[in-house]
């Protein structure tokens, strides 16, 4: 237990340091974007948040499969924690996306932009996932049903991505080429911020799982003491 806490704090420390480095890189080290100006600097943490939410939902998907195979509640706990963290960062990604969009395109939201669209779909699916868990009647059915739903939801995302591509050909628009003029220093800044957020994710996941485990144990003791 002692050792585990140390690892958790270590990860938190690494995450903080990496975040500070990436803030430095994002604001000072990288040059101002030639066409989009300074506002392009939103990009580094916007993309990192989006990445973190994809990673988190992916973990929910994989641990859902592990749970169904093993019926071990440990996996269910991780799946739930990861989904919640995913929702938080997905929310950050879909609020910062429009802010950037407004500056670059002049509009907050472009329904034609696939990345925005898919991130929104993911957000809806995992909001529904959390609603499912909140409405489950027992611990067993909560774990079973949410694992199944998480798997279905995650599988459908690439399919939805593909389906919406044809829908967009139907309404042709100019695709913003943000990556088109990405310089190598910008790429590195992005890379560092993505790594920083990945460490942040691991820290949050461990904390959340620990809290949920502790809450469960306390509930159990309370029932014993009360009865």
């Amino acid at each position, binding site marked *: 237990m002692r050792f585990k806490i140390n690892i958790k704090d270590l990860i938190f420390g690494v995450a903080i340091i990496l975040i500070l480095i990436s803030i430095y890189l994002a604001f000072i080290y990288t040059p101002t974007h030639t066409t989009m100006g300074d506002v392009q600097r939103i990009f580094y943490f916007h993309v990192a948040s989006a990445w973190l939410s994809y990673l988190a939902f992916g973990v929910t998907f994989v641990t859902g499969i592990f749970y169904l195979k093993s019926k071990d509640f440990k996996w269910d706990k991780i799946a739930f924690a990861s989904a919640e963290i995913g929702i938080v960062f997905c929310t950050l990604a879909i609020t910062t996306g429009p802010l950037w969009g407004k500056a670059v395109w002049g509009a907050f939201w472009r329904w034609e932009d696939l990345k925005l669209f898919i991130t929104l779909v993911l957000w*809806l699916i995992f909001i529904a996932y959390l609603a499912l868990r909140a409405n489950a009647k027992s611990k067993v059915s909560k774990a079973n049903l949410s694992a199944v739903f998480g798997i279905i939801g995650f599988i459908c995302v690439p399919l939805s991505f593909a389906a919406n591509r044809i829908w967009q050909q139907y309404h042709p628009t100019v695709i913003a080429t943000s990556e088109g003029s990405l310089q190598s220093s910008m790429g590195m800044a992005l890379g560092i911020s993505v790594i920083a957020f990945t460490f942040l994710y691991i820290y949050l996941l461990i904390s959340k799982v620990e809290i949920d485990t502790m809450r469960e144990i306390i509930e159990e003791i309370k029932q014993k003491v009360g009865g």
Partner: protein
Amino acid sequence: MNAIKTIFLKEIKIEFRNKQMINNYLLLSVMIIASFRFAFSIIDFSLLLIASPIIWITFFFSGMFSLSPTYKRELEEGTCEGLLLAPISNSSIYFGKFLSNFLVILLLELFSLLIFFVFFSIATPDLVALFILIIIGTIGFAALGNIISAISSNLSQSEVMLPVLLVPILLFTIVISAISATSKIFEGAHLFDVMQEVRFILMFDVVFLAIGYLLIDYILGD
């Protein structure tokens, strides 16, 4: 195969024996189409552009109400364990119910389509293409709807949870492709003009049926 047929026939029998239920579904379709009609009666609109979304949204919401009791009825009547005790696989329960869902939803959709043509005066498109689109779209709708209905029947407030769980998955896969293809059909295209959409919808059908086949065990079992 025999088990699938048995369950399919039983579902259809129960569904049609209770005539009030079917009547309610039909009534709901009329109400949805009528509300679209009234909503669009006070503004200028291009019928060609809104026809396809109206049709599919109507299909989606009226079909959903017929999906909701599929598993809930078994749980409420306490017959679920009777099925699980029988020497059949859970996937035959799924496929039997899928077929009956498919049939009931398809009937509702054809009825809604009729009402739509009554309420909205629009040039009749290539009907064969339209029917084929509706049929393949409904396969996926029933396949995914059936599995989500099995999930939501185990939740509290299952009637609300069914659309909450179904919309983010179904709307952005099958319904969106179907809307795209159907609006092309209304603009005068034929089936071979929308082959790309058709291929996508068929792919979703296969994926959803496979998901149902693989995951139903985990929903119905312990």
